[in-house]
């Protein structure tokens, strides 16, 4: 077990970072200063050993296959890392005058134009920090749009019952009441139910396409038309964009607003849970509501940050963007071009269908249509026959060095596993994954009790979440305290 930093070190250890400048009490009255600074002092090599050891206790795309549905765990190219570290980018202050930031502004402008073209939107804001942040921004825009039309009784947001949890949460944050629409037996959002739910209180309908079951919403054009006819707006959750980049466009489907996850579709690394970037796109009638500042280009080719947009919802964060994340996405786009991005989408769809074809006789695949970039399967039969659940299969995969797929969502499929291989995996990896699944299902039949023991070989095995949850609710166990 690896001890915490706070149980290591000794007072006075560590390098000298600056020329001696006394102590804070040389410059301010003691009354303004903190009484003590109880942080550990560590030698650099202690820090190095600690974090190198921690790194060994992680799965990562660079070490493991991650078939996580809806997360698009594709390879993060190292060119992106190198250019993101250029001092011409990292040392640029966000308040540096526009004239001294032309390279950065040009990158942002080009990225914005590129995303608008790829997704059929009038314009994008590069400001939101993450997908959920983008969703919230779009909801603020929808609310502002309807308010401007004098239509403030539109307070309903429609989502499919397969929606990601952040969708209704974002809607609720701006005061929308959320209404869920069921899916059909063929795994599509039920257009009949959607039509029945449309009235003059509907502000916006949030969907993703392909949906979270990995299936293309064939009725999407009729759906967007129906919502528009009822006076509502259509919002596209870009989590599944990896299936459509270069092939078709949310703008053409009829969406008014959308967000993208640059840390999914555009290879910005997940970083263990952030940072990402969640640009928001808008059609012509919604574009004036995008957050400011945005990048403009004048007749002389000079770029600048523009704030003068009277209908803008305002900024959703200080400073213009997660710029260094944008650099990575930009680098990814320029080495691929539109043709390369399209090819990636096609191969992502190929890989998902390949795994689906091979998994069909191992687990239940509830929908008979080909999938797009991800598919769902169910361990419900396995559970009835052996007691082994999707969770147990997922833990067994960890022993084989494969991260678990997304589990138990969407709720419409019981004991659900959502599998998205992405395009950056070889046939060999996919074959090995299917064989591992097959072996686990066999193990479930041969020795059902053993399934709950999995995993056996990871750094830690199944953890007690109930104990930590109960203490955490009392504010205990969330930090080192120095108590023995």
């Amino acid at each position, binding site marked *: 077990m690896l001890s915490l930093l706070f149980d290591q070190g000794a007072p006075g250890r560590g390098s000298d970072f600056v020329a001696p400048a006394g102590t804070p009490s040389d410059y301010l009255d003691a009354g303004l200063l903190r009484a003590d600074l109880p942080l550990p002092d560590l030698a650099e090599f202690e820090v190095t050993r600690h974090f190198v050891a921690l790194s060994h206790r992680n799965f990562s795309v660079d070490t493991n296959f991650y078939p996580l549905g809806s997360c698009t765990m594709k390879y993060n190219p190292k060119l992106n890392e190198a250019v993101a570290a250029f001092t011409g980018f990292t040392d640029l202050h966000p308040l540096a005058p526009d004239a001294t930031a032309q390279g950065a502004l040009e990158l942002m402008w080009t990225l914005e134009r590129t995303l608008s073209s790829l997704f059929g939107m009038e314009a994008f804001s590069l400001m939101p920090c993450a997908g959920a942040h983008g969703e919230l921004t779009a909801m603020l825009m929808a609310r502002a749009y309807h308010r401007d039309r004098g239509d403030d009784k539109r307070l309903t947001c429609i989502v499919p019952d397969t929606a990601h949890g952040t969708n209704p949460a974002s809607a609720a944050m701006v005061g929308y009441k959320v209404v869920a629409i069921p899916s059909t037996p063929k795994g599509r959002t039920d257009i009949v139910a959607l039509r029945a739910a449309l009235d003059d209180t509907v502000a916006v309908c949030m969907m993703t396409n392909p949906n979270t079951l990995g299936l293309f919403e064939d009725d999407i054009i009729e759906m967007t038309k129906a919502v528009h006819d009822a006076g509502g707006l259509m919002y596209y959750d870009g989590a599944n964009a990896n299936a459509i980049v270069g092939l078709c466009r949310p703008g053409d489907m009829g969406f008014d607003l959308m967000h993208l996850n640059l840390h999914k579709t555009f290879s910005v690394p997940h970083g263990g849970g952030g940072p990402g970037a969640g640009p928001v796109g808008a059609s012509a009638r919604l574009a004036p509501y995008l957050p400011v500042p945005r990048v403009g280009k004048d007749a002389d080719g000079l770029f600048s940050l523009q704030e003068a947009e009277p209908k803008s919802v305002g900024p959703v964060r200080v400073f213009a963007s997660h710029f260094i994340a944008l650099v990575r996405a930009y680098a990814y786009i320029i080495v691929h071009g539109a043709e390369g991005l399209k090819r990636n989408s096609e191969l992502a769809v190929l890989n998902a269908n390949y795994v689906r074809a091979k998994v069909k006789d191992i687990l239940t695949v509830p929908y008979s249509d080909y999938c797009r970039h991800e598919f769902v399967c169910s361990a419900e039969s396995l559970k009835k026959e052996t007691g082994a659940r999707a969770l147990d299969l997922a833990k067994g995969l960890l022993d084989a060095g494969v991260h678990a797929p997304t589990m138990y969502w969407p709720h419409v499929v019981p004991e659900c596993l959502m599998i998205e291989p992405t395009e950056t995996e070889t046939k060999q990896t996919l074959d090995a994954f299917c064989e591992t699944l097959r072996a686990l299902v066999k193990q479930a039949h041969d020795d059902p009790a053993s399934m709950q023991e999995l995993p056996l070989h990871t750094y830690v095995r199944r953890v007690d*979440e*109930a104990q930590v*949850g*109960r203490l*955490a*609710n009392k504010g205990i166990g969330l930090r080192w305290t120095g108590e023995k």
Partner: protein
Amino acid sequence: MPAPTDRLYTKEHEWVKIDGANATIGISDHAQSALGDIVYVELPKPGATLAQGKPIGVIESVKAVSDIYAPISGTVTEVNGAVEDDPAKVNADPYGTGWLAKITITNADEAKSLLDAASYEQFLKSEDH
């Protein structure tokens, strides 16, 4: 664990045990099982007014947060501090020491809209296809 016959149930899986003008409220064994390990219970304050069908508190498990709805209207007289301190009691003994709140009833007629044990069991069977 079959639903005890000495009390009534809601479709939201609360139970209410009526004793004259007073009642005790809790959640069913099905509910605690579906929730999984409970880590937190938020109960109304003594003196609070409850309206039938309206949310009165929250039960949080490792995987989900669920609202608790008032099975019947009333005024809270006592809440189970033991359960606030050790939420696992709700899992262990949902019909006994895992009770949530005691109330005085304001509208006895409301009991007519609740399910008896047999109807509740039937309801559970129909939900589980």
